[in-house]
């Protein structure tokens, strides 16, 4: 039976991990992921899962152990944040290029320095080109839902790739919210038995994993990865729909909020999408035609969906919770502008870099952004990149 509980994002993630009951979890604590692994290791200690929990000496070892166990044929998970993810770096790429299906919650935190433990997206944006899939969550419920779906997506035969599920550090990870937890049996059935592709432990069919791959075949393996990530587009849609049937919450790669007739559309990732929804509701009551396009899947990036939604708008505001230094705006802005290139209609797109190192973003600031868009439409003059909430 579905239960409604008061859970933090990390507790919701741990609940999903308990229901997935992975064969192996290897992890190292780092704020703000630590409470996720606290909660999960309690499930291990209490015998609620059959997981072999490997407590390693660093994140580099965590990811390495995960690659080993997944290669052996075990359903594998880990979790990290910020500098932990940075320490995993080289093995994060190796996991994707070896086509290792696994799921890793990344509780978003600013990548040092200066040292900071609060939320921004610089950690996961740093590995947007690692070949992992990346799903962002708006709240604790989505953190739970995304972790469960991610396991299916990762293991799908057309994909076979690792998936990062992200949620905003503290804002989601440590905030208690209402979360619906599905029945254990329902999740077990949804996830299904795992049949690994050519596992190392299948001694009747010997396999070598991770051999030297020089100029004669390396490029072909990279090209395969492109297909794997792109195939995930349809797989994420199908699994999001299937999940909707059993939970009442369907998922796509994007979520539209009041975009149908919207002249001004904000684009955002993570918890800020929720704050923007509140602003949209308020401004709609005042008659402003505003909407929100929430990006759930950053990798693969749903270019076609984004273009078809945004080309109808008169102005767009893109919220980036990280910087791409020396680039044309933040990472999300680059994707959005790229999605619109080639469209006949190219509405003005404004970039707002905000919330770095956990700096709050409030509804008044978001209202100000929609007012900027109004001005941009009227005057056709605007500042392309703004740093929202920084002291000048």
């Amino acid at each position: 039976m579905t239960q409604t509980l008061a859970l933090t994002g990390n507790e919701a993630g741990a609940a999903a991990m308990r229901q997935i009951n992975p064969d192996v979890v290897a992890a190292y604590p780092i704020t703000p992921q630590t409470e996720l692994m606290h909660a999960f290791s309690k499930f291990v200690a209490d015998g609620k899962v059959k997981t072999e929990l490997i407590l390693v000496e660093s994140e580099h070892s965590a990811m390495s152990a995960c690659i080993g166990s997944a290669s052996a044929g075990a359903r594998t998970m880990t979790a990290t944040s910020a500098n932990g993810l940075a320490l995993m770096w080289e093995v994060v790429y190796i996991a994707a290029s070896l086509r290792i299906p696994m799921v890793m919650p990344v509780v978003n935190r600013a990548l040092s320095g200066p040292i900071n433990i609060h939320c921004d997206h610089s950690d996961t944006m740093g590995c947007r080109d690692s070949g992992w899939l990346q799903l962002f969550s708006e709240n604790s419920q989505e953190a739970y839902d995304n972790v469960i779906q991610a396991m299916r997506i990762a293991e799908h035969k057309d994909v076979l790739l690792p998936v990062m599920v992200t949620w905003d550090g503290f804002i989601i990870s440590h905030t208690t919210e209402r979360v619906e937890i599905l029945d254990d049996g329902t999740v077990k059935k949804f996830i299904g038995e795992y049949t690994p592709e050519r596992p190392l432990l299948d001694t009747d069919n010997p396999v070598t994993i991770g051999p030297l791959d020089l100029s004669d075949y390396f490029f072909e393996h990279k090209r395969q990865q492109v297909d794997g990530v792109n195939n995930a587009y349809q797989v994420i849609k199908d699994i999001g729909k299937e999940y909707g049937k059993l939970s009442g919450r369907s998922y796509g790669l994007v979520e539209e909020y009041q975009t149908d007739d919207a002249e001004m559309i904000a684009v955002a990732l993570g918890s800020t999408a929720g704050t923007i929804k509140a602003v949209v509701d308020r401004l709609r009551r005042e008659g402003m035609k505003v909407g929100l396009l929430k990006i759930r899947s950053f990798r693969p990036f749903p270019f076609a969906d984004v273009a078809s939604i945004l080309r109808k708008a008169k102005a767009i505001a893109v919220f980036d919770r990280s910087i791409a230094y020396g680039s044309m705006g933040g990472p999300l802005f680059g994707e959005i502008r790229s999605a619109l290139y080639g469209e006949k209609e190219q509405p003005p797109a404004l970039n707002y870099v905000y919330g770095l190192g956990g700096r709050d973003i409030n509804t008044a600031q978001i209202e100000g952004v929609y007012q900027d868009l109004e001005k941009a439409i009227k005057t056709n003059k605007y500042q392309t990149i703004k740093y929202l909430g920084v002291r000048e």
Partner: protein
Amino acid sequence: MKGYKEIPLGGKIIEAGNAEKYETGSWRTYRPIWDKEKCKNCLLCWIYCPDSSIILKDGKMVGQDYRFCKGCGICARECPFQAIEMKPESEYKK
């Protein structure tokens, strides 16, 4: 050579022993030259060769397999009877 759709994902090698299809002889810059007269058939070279490139016939050393020999020089170094000498490959390749 095969296209990206025809090969196993992620560089996996799913056929045991297929290193035989990957000829590494072209990597060689020095070639081991075996002197039959000095050889006592102790087979130390056969034990040490990392590329299984010492050819045996009826349990006796008969020469090196130049399709795979990478020219590492281990056999020459280990031979207790100096029966193998490393010579520049350029003297043999035209």
